[in-house]
């Protein structure tokens, strides 16, 4: 089986596990919806204000929501010591990471799909810039969150306070990506400045961190 065959097997397994338990998606969806609704009632923004703050709110909501799912995705591997069985496999460890990160990407993407229409309604949004560019920014931003999140969740797997540890490590390291995704989204929604440089920042961030995560994952997995 090829490397991507192994990735697909891991991805299919994670989708199957989530389909049966729905632990991650339900938690994420509930949390993200709560943030969006609470902010809408708290600020009661006008359309112009919405365009300025929406980028920040949507990404912060997704970041917080994703953290709940990222921890959950590795907890499944700890249950019954399945992770030991994974470590014994001749399959490349990075395939496990990539499969899990892709599964998390799909889960967060699903939450985004549910969240987007609600966001438009609650914040009375319509993009003044090139709206189609959101189709580039959203996957890039989501991947930046889930790739690092999946990696750092695995890093904290054997610690007692892993739920606390993940945000402590993930949030500071995600600052460049958050800046890129928030600014790019605000640029597209408000049309006041070019999103291009921020999208390039996101691409560079994703290339650098995806490569590092793939290369370092075996070390993280085999750590005692």
């Amino acid at each position, binding site marked *: *089986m090829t490397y991507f065959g192994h990735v697909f097997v891991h991805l299919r397994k994670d989708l199957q596990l989530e389909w*049966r338990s729905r632990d991650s998606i339900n938690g994420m969806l509930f949390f993200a919806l709560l943030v969006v609704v609470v902010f809408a009632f708290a600020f009661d923004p006008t359309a112009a204000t919405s365009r300025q703050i929406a980028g920040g709110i949507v990404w912060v909501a997704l970041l917080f929501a994703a953290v709940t799912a990222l921890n959950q995705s590795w907890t499944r591997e700890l249950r019954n010591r399945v992770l*030991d069985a994974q470590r014994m496999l001749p399959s490349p460890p990075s395939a496990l990471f990539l499969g899990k990160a892709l599964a998390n990407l799909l889960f967060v993407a699903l939450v985004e799909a549910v969240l987007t229409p609600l966001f438009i309604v609650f914040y009375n949004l319509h993009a003044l810039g090139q709206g189609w560019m959101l189709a580039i920014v959203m996957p890039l931003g989501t991947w930046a969150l889930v790739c690092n999140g999946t990696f750092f969740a695995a890093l904290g797997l054997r610690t007692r306070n892993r739920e606390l540890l993940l945000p402590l490590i993930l949030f500071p390291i995600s600052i460049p990506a958050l800046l890129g995704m928030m600014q790019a989204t605000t640029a597209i929604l408000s049309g006041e400045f070019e999103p291009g440089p921020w999208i390039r920042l996101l691409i560079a961030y994703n290339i650098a961190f995806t490569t590092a995560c793939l290369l370092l994952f075996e070390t993280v997995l085999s750590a005692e």
Partner: protein
Amino acid sequence: MQIVDPQPVIDRNAAAAASLTEVSKLYGSFAALRKVSVAFSVGSSTVILGDNGAGKSTLLRMLAGLISPSRGSVHVFGAEPTEQRRRIAYMSHEAMLYDELSATENLRYFASLQSDGGCGCSCTASPEMALRAVGLDPTLTRPVGQYSQGMRQRASLARVLQTDPELLLLDEPFSNLDVESAHHMVDLLLDFRTWPVQSPLPAQPNSATNPSVTPSIRARTIILTTHQAHLAEPLAESTMTMRAGSIVSIVSAPPPNQATP
């Protein structure tokens, strides 16, 4: 049973499936293993006994490549355990299966990750065959999370047997089984040692030194830890006893032709 040597020994005459040399494992100031030296010859079947905390599981996890020694060296088929993953299978007293998937789904998942690029058939037993062998119904769609402890243990055994390993490491395999199921498992393990080999793996270098190992029939090695020595007796070609991280005795059963009538 015959006491060969009350002290830890290394049998240098037989080809070693696994060996530990002066191995210590420290967790902070606690020594889980203390200068352990032992070799398990190819095709042997060893039962490790000892109280809780004696170091049995640590030794097994080390042979599986799941933990590394603080001092000393561990070799499996002459290499690092992590380099021999295709030839080793490890079963813990926990199921090592996903609760949300059925036994067949679990086994298919692990089988597909075990297969190599060469011929795609490193797993010689199908998940269905392996499950039938341990007495489970492969058509059962119930998730493993709803299985009884005994069923989980048998599904876990099927997971390791389907990979047709040369070195089988079993950590407390009878811990959740009733006596009848445990006897069935022992019979299965005895049978497993004589299963015909269909694996495409090349002949091992030790086949030259050990005439019982030929390119077509690989001898399987079993190392098992348990508290229930009486259950594992049929498997105990040699019995190793550990205490406080050290081997205190290795007792070998006489060969069948020397057994007392």
